[in-house]
């Protein structure tokens, strides 16, 4: 019974606290989380396709670079990469600014927290996307590439008209997984001070002393974000493979 009374109290204070302005703050937190995730995914897409190309290359050196990239950024703790970009970025920026004399010799030039976080999460996301793109490329039917070559298509034309559309189609389910992963990784950049959902929940929990409430709400909001994206990616999959459905 004690438990039930506790819970009842929590629910009634929950409404008051959320209505008192924390609700709006949390919504902004969602917006920032989504912004971080989308930008990271885009950075990751660019890096991922370059790394996938390197891993598929005939040149040993490029292959080595690609392999190292995916091994390192999938093997390190995400937190370490984020600290490296945020604090390391601050170290580099400060060093450069001090040597050019634009700040005093004891001043510190901070890495913008959004930029540092997005770069770190984007680079991690890129390592996973590279594997997705590589897998999709290998799944393209060899005959299609041969046919394109037999038509006399140039390398660029083959890439644009045959490889890219196929890779995108085959990569959609894998990209859906990476998207979920990136949403969850974005929670970690709260340590650098980006006001995304996790940090907002943290602030709310600390200043109101209702940690249970705010972390539960944050957890639910993350669940909503990850579960909403599932049908969206399923729809994208149906759309991109619409010409491959079996006739009824």
């Amino acid at each position, binding site marked *: 019974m004690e438990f039930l009374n506790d819970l009842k109290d929590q629910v009634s204070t929950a409404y008051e606290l959320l209505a008192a302005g924390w609700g709006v703050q949390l919504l902004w937190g969602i917006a920032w989380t989504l912004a971080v995730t989308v930008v990271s995914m885009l950075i990751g897409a660019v890096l991922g396709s370059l790394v996938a190309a390197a891993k598929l290359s005939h040149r040993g050196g490029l292959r080595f670079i690609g392999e190292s990239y995916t091994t390192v950024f999938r093997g390190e703790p995400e*937190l370490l990469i984020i600290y490296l970009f945020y604090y*390391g970025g601050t170290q580099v920026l400060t060093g450069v600014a001090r040597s050019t004399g634009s700040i005093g010799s004891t001043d510190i030039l901070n890495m913008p927290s959004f930029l540092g976080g997005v770069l770190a999460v984007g680079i991690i996301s890129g390592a996973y996307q590279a594997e997705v793109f590589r897998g999709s490329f290998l799944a393209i039917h060899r005959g299609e590439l041969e046919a394109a070559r037999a038509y006399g298509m140039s390398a660029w034309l083959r890439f644009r008209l045959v490889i890219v559309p196929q890779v995108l189609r085959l990569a959609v389910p894998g990209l859906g997984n990476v998207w979920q992963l990136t949403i*969850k990784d974005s929670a970690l950049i709260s340590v650098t001070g980006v006001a995304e959902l*996790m940090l907002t*929940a*943290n602030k709310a929990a600390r200043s109101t002393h209702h940690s249970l409430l705010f*972390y539960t709400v944050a*957890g639910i909001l993350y669940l909503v974000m990850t579960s909403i994206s599932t049908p969206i990616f399923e729809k994208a999959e149906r759309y991109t493979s619409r010409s491959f459905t079996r006739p009824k």
Partner: protein
Amino acid sequence: MDLDFYLSTMWSVLKALPLTLEIWFFGIAFGLIIATGLTWLRASGYRLGEYFTRAYVFIFRGSPLLVQLYLIYFGLSQFDFVRHSPILWPILRDPMYCTIVAMALNTAAYESEIFRGALRAVPVGQIEAAKAFGMSALTRFRLVTLPIALRLALPAYSTEIILMTKATALASVVTIMEMMGTAQKIQHDTFRPIEVLTCAGVIYLLLNLSIARLFAWVEYRLSPHLRPPPEQSQQIRPVPEVL
């Protein structure tokens, strides 16, 4: 280049490796126990068990581990009954135990899905053959289903273990001085984050690479029947001209 600094940092971070491994080991061990329970519940055929495991997997896979950790460490102590419980409170007030609990609960969700998939992937013919031999359900499970399923689960399981190594770094946000926490402290003291984090990164990478190696070796040892015999694995030799 300041070799002494690198070496002393490396050494300080390495001294925290036992703590990292402790969190890692207990997280994985308890996670495995919970995952086994969940898999059994899911496979038992009870409707309620299936709903429970589905909800469990949905919740723990759909939200970040950091939220789960904060919820357990900061959130649960809000309940009076937790603070007055002689069993729960000693566990939930200690950040170390909280990290282990959060990791175990989180990894159990992923592992139970891995095990479920592995059980489903056991060829039906094998089970039918075992039935035809008149094996009891337990014998069948012990001698046929389990060995095959374990081997099928191994690659995905090793990936999950590596994710757990990475997750131990989160303990640093709840004040545990494991490798990441130690690196953070040195970095704040010296303001040389790039050097310090590189040292820690090298150790984490070596740790993960050795874990991956170990699992690859176990997998190799467990599947001798899937390897082609050595003489046939080479290219087909031309028939020697005898005549």
